[in-house]
């Protein structure tokens, strides 16, 4: 119905405007999350095409993408200035945690990759 289409467009535009207001560093993190999820989707599509033969490799790669995305989301939560809970946590500390967790995740992933 044309009214609904118009409503959806208005909604979309208002969301876009609100999003533009977010600080750049948070936008970088969001872009990173989108990148990780997109990679995971490509891999799932590949598995759908050729079958899951080395299943451990598939799991390892998909969980690597999803794990990175999750860690990025955690970083975003901790770095976001509007978040009252993490007011006292310096963003550098959050970033250091992010780096460390990523390194551990990737070690485990490389071991499981086979």
């Amino acid at each position, binding site marked *: 119905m044309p009214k609904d289409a118009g409503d959806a467009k208005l909604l979309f535009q208002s969301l876009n405007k609100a999003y533009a207001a977010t600080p*750049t560093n948070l936008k970088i993190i969001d872009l990173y999350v989108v990148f*990780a999820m*997109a990679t995971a989707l*490509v891999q799932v599509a590949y598995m759908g095409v050729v079958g899951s033969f080395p299943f451990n490799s598939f799991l390892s790669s998909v969980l690597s993408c999803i794990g990175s995305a999750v860690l990025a989301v955690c970083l975003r939560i901790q770095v976001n200035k509007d978040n009252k809970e993490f007011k006292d946590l310096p963003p550098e500390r959050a970033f*250091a945690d992010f*780096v460390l967790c990523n390194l551990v995740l990737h070690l485990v992933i490389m071991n499981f990759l086979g």
Partner: protein
Amino acid sequence: MAWRLPPLAVLLLLVAAAVAPLSSAVRPVSDAHRSVAAELFAASPDDALCSLETTYEAVRTFKMLGVQRDKGLDGKACKLAAHTLSSSSSPAKDLFQAVQIAGVLGCSVDAGVYDDVASRLKAVIKDTDSLLEFYYSVGGLLSLKEQGHSVVLSDADSTFHAIKALSQSDGRWRYDTNSAESSTFAAGIALEALAGVVSLSDAEVDPSMIGVVKNDIVKLFGTIKSYDDGTFYFDEKYVDGSEYKGPITTSASVVRGVTSFANVVSGKLNIPGEKILGLAKFFLGIGLPGSAKDCFNQIESLSLLENNRIFVPLILSLPSKVLSLTSKDQLKVEVTTVFGSAAPPLRVNLVQVLGSDSKIITTDSKELQFDLDNNVHYLDITPLKIDVGKYSLVFEITLQDSEHETVYTTGGRNTESVVVTGLIKVDKAEIGISENDAGSAESVEKLDLLKDTKVSLSANHLQKLRLSFQLSTPLGRTFKPHQVFLKLKHESKVEHLFVVPGSARQFKIVLDFLGLVEKFYYLSGTYDLELSVGDASMENSFLRALGQLELDLPEAPEKAPRPPAQAVDPLAKFRPQKEIEHIFRVPEKRPLQEVSLAFTGLTLLPFIGFLIGLMRLGVNLKNFPSLPGPAAFASLFHAGIAAVLLLYVLFWVKLDLFTTLKYLSFLGVFLVFVGHRTLSHLSNTTAKQKTA
């Protein structure tokens, strides 16, 4: 039931079983060994392949066995030896072997060549610190001295010390000062080299050193290994794959070393006679050797043991291990040296006769009489009333001259196994058919099992076949042979085999056809009867055709098992068999390479999208510290992260988890330190910006 047996008898049985070793089956060196040696060392048609080492072994083996070689082969060996001696690049090992060949064959070599060889070997002794070099050069010089050339080793004490320095505390030797492993084979070589040094030296070698070496020999004999039958041998403690020499070579090396050392020193070596006898039994127990090297080692060790200064082993052997009661064979025993030469005057007593299951038959000690012409001890066994069967005979050897006790070793008690055979009487043989329920209505026929008989019987499935006979030994006791079979063979070649059970009185079998109908596959018709009785100690084992049996069995029901198909050709199972197709797990299907590559590209697309997005957001490096210190830490931080990721890639490609974790721990510590510096600098900068 154990308490029924008198305890003393049980104790005696245990003691007898413990004391009497298992029997050995050795025979002294004989013409069989000579012909095997001739075969093993047969010259190959292409003599260029005949190496110096094989020529050396062949020449020495034939000399020790007393076998004459072809003159042409001797000439070739001499030429090879002369060529090696005159060549200036021959190593000490080749010179040693060439001098030995020349000495044995009596080759004519220039005296000047020998002088040159002697001086070269002496130079090797002065310069080297390797055990094998010492051994070959000292051996070569000793061989030259034995051929009549005057060779003297000056400064023998220092050479002796140098060789002795390589010894280990357990009696074994190292090969040179650099190697850490020691071996028993090296110990044998070292002892032979030391003996050579003592013979070659002009002055007497320090007696205290000789005493130390004698102790080493005692320690070396502590590492000897043995089998249950009194055989002793040497083997390496650590088996190193490529260098493993085997017990024959190792034991031969030790025998060479110990006998040559015993020959040159005064006083006796403290080695028990049973170990020398055990070594002799080991080499004789090889029998006819399978390889040229084993033959050489065996013959050389035995010839050194034949007349050595420690103990000369005397071997007890039986020329024949089968004694027939029918032909009234006598028990004959030979006691000789390892090469078959006559032993000193001695007495042989038959101390014990043990039957199967170590049952003691007799314990009276009987002395065997000596036949001087044939050098054989013999005994008539008929008075012993020994029945047919397998027995272990325990002999005891005592030397008549007590002075010989320090020269010869006999091993005290020796056990040998013999088989006594005889004619077994078969009598009271009967065969017949009887009705099932009634026991008395039998039609029996007497059989004479000494020849094939042709009885003709007929039965149906309700009847039984009875066969019985008695077996008795020449001494009248009941005999239980190894094989007693009754075979029924149908005209269609289906066979059935039955074991005839034996009791104390007789052998009797009852075939109840009612129970056997299915086993016979319901086949009616003519069956051939065959009886076979056999045993190792039975001289008249037989396979007799008894006759025929017409058997009437009911019709086969629908589901009855068919008789197995008879092999047309019984040899078919020895022909090439069918090829076996193995079924392997089918490997998983893999996608096409193009598909995989396409998706690899697709996976990289989001990354490119990420980079483009970053550029669109206006990412920059403005916050990178400009001061040199913090800048260095910052770049090190990024470099550290890159190094960890590179380590992960290497981990995937070739490293294992433990190596990776090791490197990761180093990188991690570094990264934590550098990261802390960088990030704290950054947070300080932002804090300053906020407050400023």
